[in-house]
C-alpha cells in the first residue's frame, strides 16, 4: 500500500468525504486533477450505510452550473427554490421537510444563519468546489461532530484540496467566464506546497452581472386566442460579489492533520422582486459581508482512538435598504456573530464495533438596527449545546448497524433554560450476497428544526414561546452497483415516509394585518426516489455518461380536517420531478478531451399556496441545457474552453410564482491551469 494512498484514504474516510473507491481504473488522462490510484478496500465498518448522492470533480464542472444551487438540482428528492437570475436567492428543500431542515456543511462545518435559518446556495461558486454530497438522514459515519447528527438532510460542500505530484510545488488555475446577463466572472486559484506536509491554497473570484434578462408572460383564452403576450426586462437583478478563500493544510503524519480555512465574501445586489400587475421593477438593495475562519485538527492514537477538534468563528453583516419610494421605506442593518467549538471522539472497541461521543457548543448573536427610524440596536443571543453518542457494528459481513442519539439544548436570549431534547437515529444496511454489490438500507431518524431569531423576535410577528419543529423520517433503499472494465452502473430506489409536526408557520393574530408565528401544522410526506447512474467506456476512447433521477412525492397538509387545504399538497412541492444528464466525451491520443453534455430538468405541476385550487396552480417547467467543451494540453499547461447554452428552447417559466426565470442564455468559460 502506497503511503500516499493510505493518507488519502484516511482523509477521505475521516473528513467526511467519500471517494469512489471501486471505480474501475481508467485511462489516467481522464482524471488529471483527481486522485490517482486509490486502491485500498476500506474497513467495512466505515462504509456508508446511507449512500450519498455525489457530484464531484470533472462531473461537477461538466454540468452547466454556476453555483452550488444549480448543481443540486441534479439530486433526487431535492426541490430548489429559485427566485431567478444570477443574484436571486436559491435555497433547497430536501424531501419536502422545508429548507430549514437541511444543514449545509462547508468543509465539515455547518454554515449558519441564526437570523432566518436559510443558506443561499446561489452564493457558493462551483469554481472552488471539489465535491458536493447530499445525505438523507445523516452521514452514516459515526465519527462526526454532534451537530451533524442534528439535521434531517445534510449537504456537504468540499472545496478543492491541493495534491502535488512529485516535483510539483505550485498549481495555478486561472479562469474567465462571460455570459448572458452581463456576466463577467474571473477566478484565480493558487496551490503552493510549502513543505512535505504543509500546503497553502488561495482562491479568489469576482462576479459581476447586470442581471438584466428578458422574460415573457403569455396567456391564452380557453379558445386559444392570445389574451396577452408581454415581454419585459428584469431589472434590479444586478450583483457584484468578491469571494476570497485561503487554506493552510498540514498533513503532518499518517493519522493526523491540521487545517485552517478562511472565507470572505462581499456582495452588493438588487432584489428584483415579484412581477405583479402594474409593477415591473423594484428597488430593494442588499449588501452582505460573510466572513468565517475555521480550524480543524484530527489525529488517532493507539490505532483505536480518533479525536477531532473543530473551531469556527463567523461574522456576517447584512444591510438591507428599500429604495422603492412606493413601498415601506426600510434601511436595516444586521450583524450576526457565531462562535463554534466541537470535540469528537471515536473508539474502536473491536474490529466490528465502534463507539463515538461528541460535544459541540455554539454561541450566536444578532444585532439588528433600523436606521430609518433611528431606533436603538436590538440584540438577541443564543447558546446551543449538542451532545451525541453513536455506535456502529457489523454482524458478519452482511449486516451493518448504526445508532445515534443527540441531545440538544438551546437557550435563547433572556429565556429560561429549556429542557434538552433527545433525538434518535437508527441505520441498517443489509447486503445479502458478498460478491454482489446489492444492499438494502433503511433508517429512522428524528430531528428538530429550531426556531430562528426571526421566528422568535421579528418585530410584532415573532413568538418567543415557539417550540422546535419535529421531523420524523423513515426510509428504505435498495441499491445496486456493478462495475466492469466497460461500464459502471449504479441504481437505487428508495421509499420514504416523513412526518413533520409542530410546524412553525405564520398565523394571523386575530388583529388586522398582524401575524404571529405558531407551532401549528402537520405534514405527511410519502415519496419515492429512483436514480440511475451509468457510464459506458466505449471503443475509440469514447465515454458515455448518463445520470437519471426521478422523484415522486406527496406532501400533504394534515393539520386540521376543517381547513380548506386539508390533505392538499403543500406549496411548491411537485408530485413528479426528475432530471437527466447525458454526456459524451472523447479523448484524443495525446490526451486532449472533447465532449458535450446535455441535461434536462423537469419539475411537475405545483401549487403556490396551501390550497390546491386552479388559482394557485403553477405550471410544470423543464429546461434543456447543453454544454460543449474541449481541453487541450500544451507542454505542462492545460487549456479548457466551455460553452454552455441554458434553457435551450427558451421556455418561459417560473420556479416561484411571479419571479420569472431567464429565457435562453449562454455562458462561455476559458480556463488555464498548470
Amino acid at each position, binding site marked *: 500500500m502506497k503511503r500516499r494512498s493510505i493518507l488519502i484514504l484516511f482523509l477521505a474516510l475521516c473528513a467526511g468525504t467519500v471517494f469512489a473507491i471501486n471505480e474501475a481504473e481508467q485511462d489516467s488522462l481522464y482524471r488529471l486533477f483527481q486522485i490517482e490510484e486509490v486502491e485500498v478496500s476500506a474497513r467495512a465498518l466505515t462504509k456508508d450505510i446511507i449512500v450519498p448522492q455525489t457530484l464531484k470533480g470533472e462531473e461537477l464542472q461538466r454540468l452547466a452550473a454556476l453555483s452550488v444551487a444549480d448543481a443540486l438540482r441534479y439530486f433526487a428528492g431535492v426541490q430548489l427554490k429559485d427566485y431567478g437570475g444570477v443574484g436571486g436567492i436559491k435555497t433547497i428543500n430536501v424531501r419536502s421537510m422545508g429548507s430549514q431542515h437541511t444543514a449545509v456543511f462547508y468543509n465539515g462545518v455547518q454554515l449558519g444563519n441564526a437570523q432566518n435559518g436559510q443558506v443561499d446556495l446561489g452564493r457558493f461558486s462551483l469554481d472552488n468546489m471539489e465535491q458536493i454530497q447530499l445525505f438523507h438522514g445523516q452521514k452514516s459515519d459515526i465519527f462526526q461532530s454532534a451537530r451533524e447528527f442534528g439535521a434531517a438532510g445534510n449537504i456537504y460542500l468540499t472545496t478543492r484540496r491541493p495534491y502535488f505530484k512529485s516535483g510539483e510545488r505550485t498549481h495555478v488555475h486561472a479562469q474567465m467566464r462571460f455570459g448572458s446577463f452581463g456576466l463577467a466572472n474571473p477566478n484565480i486559484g493558487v496551490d503552493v506546497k510549502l513543505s512535505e506536509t504543509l500546503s497553502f491554497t488561495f482562491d479568489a473570484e469576482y462576479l459581476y452581472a447586470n442581471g438584466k434578462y428578458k422574460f415573457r*408572460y*403569455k*396567456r*391564452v*383564452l*380557453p379558445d*386559444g386566442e392570445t*389574451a*396577452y403576450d*408581454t415581454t419585459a426586462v428584469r431589472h434590479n437583478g444586478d450583483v457584484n460579489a468578491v469571494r476570497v478563500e485561503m487554506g493552510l493544510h498540514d498533513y503532518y503524519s499518517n493519522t493526523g492533520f491540521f487545517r485552517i480555512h478562511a472565507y470572505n465574501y462581499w456582495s452588493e445586489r438588487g432584489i428584483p*422582486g*415579484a*412581477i*405583479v*400587475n*402594474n*409593477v415591473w421593477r423594484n428597488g430593494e438593495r442588499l449588501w452582505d459581508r460573510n466572513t468565517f475562519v475555521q480550524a480543524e485538527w484530527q489525529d488517532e492514537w493507539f490505532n483505536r482512538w480518533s479525536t477531532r477538534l473543530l473551531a469556527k468563528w463567523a461574522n456576517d453583516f447584512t444591510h438591507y435598504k428599500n429604495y422603492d*419610494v*412606493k413601498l*415601506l*421605506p426600510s434601511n436595516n442593518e444586521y450583524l450576526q456573530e457565531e462562535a463554534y467549538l466541537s470535540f469528537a471522539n471515536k473508539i474502536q472497541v473491536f474490529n466490528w464495533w465502534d463507539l463515538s461521543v461528541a460535544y459541540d457548543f455554539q454561541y450566536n448573536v444578532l444585532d439588528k438596527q433600523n436606521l430609518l427610524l433611528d*431606533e436603538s440596536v436590538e440584540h438577541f443571543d443564543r447558546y446551543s449545546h449538542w451532545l451525541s453518542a453513536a455506535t456502529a457494528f457489523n454482524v458478519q459481513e452482511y449486516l451493518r448497524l448504526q445508532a445515534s442519539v443527540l441531545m440538544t439544548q438551546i437557550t435563547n436570549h433572556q429565556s429560561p433554560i429549556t429542557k434538552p431534547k433527545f433525538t434518535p437515529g437508527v441505520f441498517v444496511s443489509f447486503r445479502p450476497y458478498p460478491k454482489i454489490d446489492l444492499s438494502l438500507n433503511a433508517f429512522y431518524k428524528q430531528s428538530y428544526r429550531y426556531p430562528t431569531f426571526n421566528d422568535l423576535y421579528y418585530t*410584532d410577528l415573532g413568538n418567543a414561546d415557539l417550540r422546535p419543529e419535529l421531523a420524523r423520517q423513515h426510509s428504505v433503499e435498495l441499491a445496486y452497483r456493478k462495475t466492469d472494465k466497460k461500464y459502471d452502473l449504479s441504481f437505487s430506489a428508495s421509499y420514504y415516509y416523513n412526518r413533520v409536526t409542530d410546524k412553525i408557520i405564520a*398565523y*394571523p393574530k*386575530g*388583529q*388586522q*394585518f*398582524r*401575524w404571529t408565528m405558531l407551532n401549528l401544522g402537520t405534514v405527511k410526506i410519502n415519496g419515492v426516489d429512483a436514480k*440511475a447512474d*451509468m457510464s*459506458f467506456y466505449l471503443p475509440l476512447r469514447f465515454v*458515455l455518461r*448518463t445520470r*437519471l433521477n426521478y422523484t415522486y412525492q406527496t406532501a400533504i397538509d394534515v393539520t386540521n380536517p376543517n*381547513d*380548506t*387545504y386539508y390533505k392538499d399538497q403543500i406549496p411548491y412541492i411537485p408530485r413528479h420531478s*426528475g432530471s*437527466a444528464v*447525458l454526456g459524451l466525451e472523447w479523448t484524443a491520443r495525446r490526451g486532449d478531451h472533447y465532449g458535450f453534455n446535455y441535461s*434536462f430538468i*423537469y419539475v411537475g405541476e405545483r401549487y*403556490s*399556496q*396551501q*390550497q390546491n*385550487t*386552479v*388559482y394557485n396552480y403553477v*405550471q*410544470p417547467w*423543464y429546461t*434543456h441545457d447543453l454544454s460543449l467543451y474541449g481541453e487541450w494540453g500544451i507542454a505542462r499547461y492545460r487549456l479548457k474552453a466551455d460553452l454552455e447554452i441554458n434553457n435551450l*428552447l427558451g*421556455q418561459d417559466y417560473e420556479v416561484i*410564482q*411571479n419571479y420569472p426565470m431567464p429565457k435562453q442564455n449562454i455562458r462561455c468559460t476559458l480556463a488555464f491551469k498548470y
Partner: protein
Amino acid sequence: MHTRFQILKPFTSYHLPFTILVCVLLWSCRKDEVVYPTIPTDVTDEVQQGGLYVLCEGNMGANKARLDYMNLETGTYYSNWYGAQNPKQVKELGDVGNDIQTYGSRLYAVINCSHKVEVMDLQARHIGQVDIPNCRYLAFHGNKMYVSAYVGSIADPELLGSVFEVDTATLTITREVKVGHQPDELCILDDKLYVTNSGGYLTNRYDSTLSVIDLTSFTEIQKITVGINPTRVRADEQGHLWVCSQGNYKDIKPQVVVVGGPRIQTPCANISIQGTHAYILDNENKELKVYSTINYNLSPVTYHLSSFETPYGLLATADAFYVTDAKNYVSSGVLHCYAYDGRERWQALTGDIPGHLCRVGEAMHTDTTDTVTPQSAYISRVYEYLPGMGQFVNMLPKYETGDDAQAMCRKCEQAIANNAGGMVCLGGWGGYITFGFDHPVENLEGRDIQILGNAYKMSGNETYGSSEPGIVLVCRDENGNGLPDDTWYELKGCLYDDPLTDHHYSRTYTRAGDTLQNPYHNQPYYPQWITADEYTLYGAKLPSQTEKISGQVVQRILEYGYVDNKPNKDKDGTSFDIAWAVDANGLPVTLPSVDFVRVYTAVDEINDPTGEISTEITGAIDLHINN
C-alpha cells in the same frame, strides 16, 4: 410547445439511456397557460336585490387580488369575476386589493401593491386606471375621487402620506395634499374631507389623528386627535364621525371614537353604518356589536361569530349584513350573509383575504358563456326621452297605462338600441332623446357618430325631400356618475350661424292644449307618462325649409349637421363629427370623447296634411367600432 430533438444512435447496444430520455421528453409536454377561469357556484335559493362585489386582497407579491361577484338575484357566486370580464388585462387585477366602491355608473377598486385605482363599469369591465403610489382607500364628492396613499408623489423623509384628488372624467390627478403618517380610510362631510392617519409604518410611534382637509382650497386645516392608530372613519346620518382606533397591539387597547361623542372601548376591526346603527366588528371576541348612532348605546342584539377563524370584512345593508372570515390569510376565505334576526342566509367560499365588499343595485348580466362582450357600435342605453307634443307621441314608442319615464326609456331601447331597427319619434319642437353607448365615443379624425332617421329625397331631385332636422348635443360624464347631468355642447350644423336661427327659443306644452288631433292619429298627443300638466322645452329653433313643389309639401335638404335630414344611405350626410362641438357661447371646444348624445326636434312647424315636423330616430352607430 413542441420539443424537437434528434435521436443519435451511434451505439445500438447502449440505447437504454436514450430511450429513457425520449420518454422523459415526451412525457413533459407543457400546455399554453390559460387565463384564470371564473367559476360559478350556486350558494342559495334566497333572492335579494342586485349584486355584491367581493374584493379579495391576496397576499403581497402573490398578484392574487381577486374580484368576485355574488349575483344576489340568482344566488350564484362567481369567483374571479374581474378576470372573466377582462381576460386580456396583463397580469390580471393585481397585487393586494384594498378598497372597492361604486360611484355613479362606475366601480372603483384600490389595488394597493399594484399602486393603482382600477376603474371599471358596474359590470367590472375595465375602463381605465389611475396610478397612485401605495394607495389605500377611496372617497367621492362631486366629480372628484379622493384617494389616500401611504406615500406622496415624492417620498417624504418624514414618511408622511398624501390624499390625491382625481378627476373622475379624465382619470387624472388634479391635486395632492400632504397629511399625517400612513393615511387610511377617508370620509367626506360638509365639503370637508377627514382622513385617518394611522402611522402603521411606525410600530412604536403610531399616529393618532384625523386630518381635516378643506375641499375648496385642498389644504389641511386641522388635525383632530382621536386615538392611537386610527384606521377607519365613517359618517353617520347625524353627521358624526366614527373612528376605529386600533391601539398599539400592546398596552393601549383598540377603541371606537365618535368625534364629539363618546369613546367606546371595543376591538373594532371593521365598521359599517346602516340607518341609525353602527355595526362594529369585534374581531377579538368574534362578535358583531350594534350601537345606536343616536344615543351611542350598545344594542342588546349582538351577533356571535364564534365559528369564525378571523372575522375581517363587513358590510351592513338594508336587507342583510355580510361578514367575511379571512381564515389563515393564505387560503380561501368565506363570505357569510346574515339576516338581521341573526339567521345565516348563505355562505360562499371566496379568494384569499376577502376584505372589501360593495353592493350594487342592479344584478349584473352573469351569463358566463358571453361575459366578454366587445364594445358595441350601437346604442346601448336610452337615458331620457321627452317628446314635444305630436301625432306620433304615445305611439312611437307605445305608451301603456302605468309606464313612467324610465319605462318609456326602456321601450325606446327596445326600438333603437343594439341595431334593433325600430323608430322613436321626438314629436314637436324641442322634443328630445338622450342615449349612449357601452363606451365613450372617441373624437377621432373625421366623422365619429352616424345617427339614423327616416329622411328621404324626392325622386329625381337632389335638393328637396322629407327633412325633419334635429340638433345634436353631446356631453361628457364629467362627474363620473353615469348620468347625463353634465355640460352639453351643440354640434354646429350648417344653419348655426344663420340669422334666422333662434338660439334662445322655448316652448311650453300643456295637457289642456292637447286638442290638435288630426284625422289619422287620435291618441293623446301629450306624453301620458308626464304627471305634470305642462312642461317647457328650451333650445334653438331653425328656420322653416318647407316649400310646395309639384303639389307636394317638401323641405329643402340642409347641407350638413342635422339628424333626420338626409337619407340613411348617405353615410356622410347622416354622420357627425365631435369636433363640431361648440359651447353655449358658440366657441369651439375640444372633447376627447363623449358619453351621451342628445337629439331634439329643431323646427317648430305644423303642415297639412303631414302634421308637425318631428325628428325621428332609428338608431345610431359609433363609426370607430367595427362590428
